[in-house]
């Protein structure tokens, strides 16, 4: 009986005092880039499927890093133009976002559910940094976190120039979509 009580107390204490998972990450997140306008002859859509993302659930700090050459477009010519003429990925190979969930306290990471989160931070791309503020969705599901957000970036804020010749065929404001399924970071 005493043995059973001790065992029960041990199980209870490990459950109660086990440190809660704080950091979540992925290296296979997705970011979409869409600069299509009604006059575009084709959809100008690129997808990167190797996005690194880390979320600290304690502080709400969120970081994303992505390699610009990793954006894939349906047409090779579009991909070449994106890399050579717009984002100049040889010179600026990486883009990153460092921000925070400003309403992190309203998320209950211990319980499955979906939450609207406000994100604020700095996006660095093409050698320029600009402040980004957007609203996204955070879903806690079976020990994983699904992050989704869609926001617009003004290409001029990052010194990305659209040539006059194609000015009416390429959006000056690109739509960025983020889709990351985060796993708990062990160790």
């Amino acid at each position, binding site marked *: 009986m005493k043995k059973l009580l001790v065992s029960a107390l041990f199980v209870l204490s490990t459950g109660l005092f086990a440190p809660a998972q704080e950091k979540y*990450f992925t*290296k*296979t997140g*997705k970011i979409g880039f869409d600069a299509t306008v009604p006059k575009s002859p084709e959809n100008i859509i690129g997808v990167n*499927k*190797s996005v*690194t993302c*880390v979320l600290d659930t304690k502080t709400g700090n969120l*970081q994303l*890093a992505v*390699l*610009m*050459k*990793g954006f*894939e477009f*349906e*047409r*090779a*010519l579009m*991909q070449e133009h994106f*890399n050579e003429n717009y984002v100049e*990925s*040889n010179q600026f*190979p*990486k883009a990153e976002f460092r921000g925070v969930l400003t309403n992190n306290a309203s998320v209950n990471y211990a319980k499955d559910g979906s939450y609207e989160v406000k994100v604020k931070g700095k996006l660095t791309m093409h050698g320029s940094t600009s402040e980004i503020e957007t609203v996204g969705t955070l879903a806690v599901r079976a020990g994983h976190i699904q992050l989704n957000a869609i926001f617009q970036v003004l290409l001029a804020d990052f010194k990305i120039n659209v040539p006059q010749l194609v000015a009416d065929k390429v959006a000056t404001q690109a739509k960025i979509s983020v889709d990351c*399924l985060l796993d708990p*970071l062990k160790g």
Partner: protein
Amino acid sequence: MQRKMFYSVLILLVISIIGGTYLFREFNRRNLPVSAQTPLYRVSSNVLIAAFSEHGEAANKKYLGNIIEVTGNLKAINKDDKGNYTIVLGDTAQTASIRCSMSSDKQPEYSKKMIGNPVTIIGVCTGYLPDELGLGADIILNRSEFKQ
């Protein structure tokens, strides 16, 4: 005079057809599978990791955007929520890895038995993400395929 005019129109027509065909083909050109192209460099995973971690700028100039063939130990097989596979190459003792995002057109059968064995992968080098987030540094290869 009429003959001269005829030839001028004919030449213009031929130039227009050739130019139009070239532009049409160029506009609709797709990325060729990496297996249909010759890799520019053949390296081991350790050499590639050392090149990027020790001489990042030179490695970027050499490998960025190029098709490369990498041989190394298969460290892990990751499948994401959309069914895309990533093959991770490198030494288990090292935190740095080569992450090969596999082509969705050619998905071979992945088996956990492959882990720990040497494999050769061809892919497009998209660059290097240094270990700034505490997750280990990564060299990323896109549109990757196993060497047949």
